[in-house]
């Protein structure tokens, strides 16, 4: 995975890659696609909930619990860290902390999305290269 992903993804991501085989070569990409679709929905819900004042910290914490869960499952370590911090602010009833942390979370989430898109593209083109090379040998 190398320096490109360092810090953004932890060993859980590598565990998921271990689960791929020839019969299921796109498993991680599929999980990532589900993750980004699901987290987009959660981000939207949280955005809306943050616009309503006074903040419903229980509801926010509940959304963040889900967000943290799926981020953990895919190995998104930076996003996970922001989720944890957000929940701390929820428990402390700290609205400003929540808002600030959420901005950070969205940034990390967007960065991760770009990096993973690139990662899967490189993988796919690597695979094509290998196929091309094999075909040229014939």
């Amino acid at each position, binding site marked *: 995975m190398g320096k490109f992903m360092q810090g953004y993804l932890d060993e859980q991501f590598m*565990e998921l890659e271990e689960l791929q085989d020839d019969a299921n070569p796109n498993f991680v990409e599929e999980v990532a696609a589900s993750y980004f679709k699901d987290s987009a929905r959660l981000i939207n819900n949280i955005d809306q909930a943050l616009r309503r004042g006074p903040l419903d910290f229980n509801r926010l914490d509940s959304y963040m619990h889900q967000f943290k869960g799926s981020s953990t499952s895919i190995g998104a370590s930076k996003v996970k860290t922001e989720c944890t911090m957000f929940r701390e602010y929820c428990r402390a009833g700290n609205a400003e902390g929540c808002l600030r942390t959420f901005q950070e979370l969205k940034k990390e989430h967007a960065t991760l999305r770009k990096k993973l898109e690139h990662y899967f593209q490189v993988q796919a083109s690597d695979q094509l290269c290998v196929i091309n090379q094999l075909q040229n040998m014939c």
Partner: protein
Amino acid sequence: MAVGEVMRMEIPASGDLSVTSPELHVLAVDDSIVDRKVIERLLRISACKVTTVESGTRALQYLGLDGDKGASGLNDLKVNLIVTDYSMPGLTGYDLLKKIKESSAFREIPVVIMSSENILPRIEQCLKEGAEDFLLKPVKLADVKRIKELIMRNEAEDCKTISHSNKRKLAEGIDTPSPSSSSSHDYSSVKDFPSSKRMKSESENLSSLL
């Protein structure tokens, strides 16, 4: 027992467990789509048939326990194991566990709870209610393999206990008159394939009669 109907394990006299066994059918319950994908993959790699549902309510519907359809339900394939997340909206994993254990039709099905939170009172509560095991998320392949082996081993022990107690019963019947009427009662309940816990206590009863 319900599980025995699907398993049909043939245990050779040596008790060797390396016989070919049919696949476990696992019902995986989780409200997170990411976690459903992951647990499904882990289970398939471990040679299990998998059905995933997104809630405890759906799980009960699948089993036919929701009161709507009676015992028939939607599923045409017996469930050998239920793996469920703890924190779910509506019915929690604990609520689902309770309902399964309260049901005469399904209480024999082992239930494993998964949670992202390592909360000891929660774990104890689930084990006390009859959960087979408790897995901390993110669930690893090693966890799934361990659970599968545990379930298969329990099934094998149930089959062995049944066949051993049957042999003992037959031996008693030929050599000695039955010491009490309870032994014939025991035999008929053996035919009903009770749970592994009940089987163990019945075989203890038998050895106390000898």
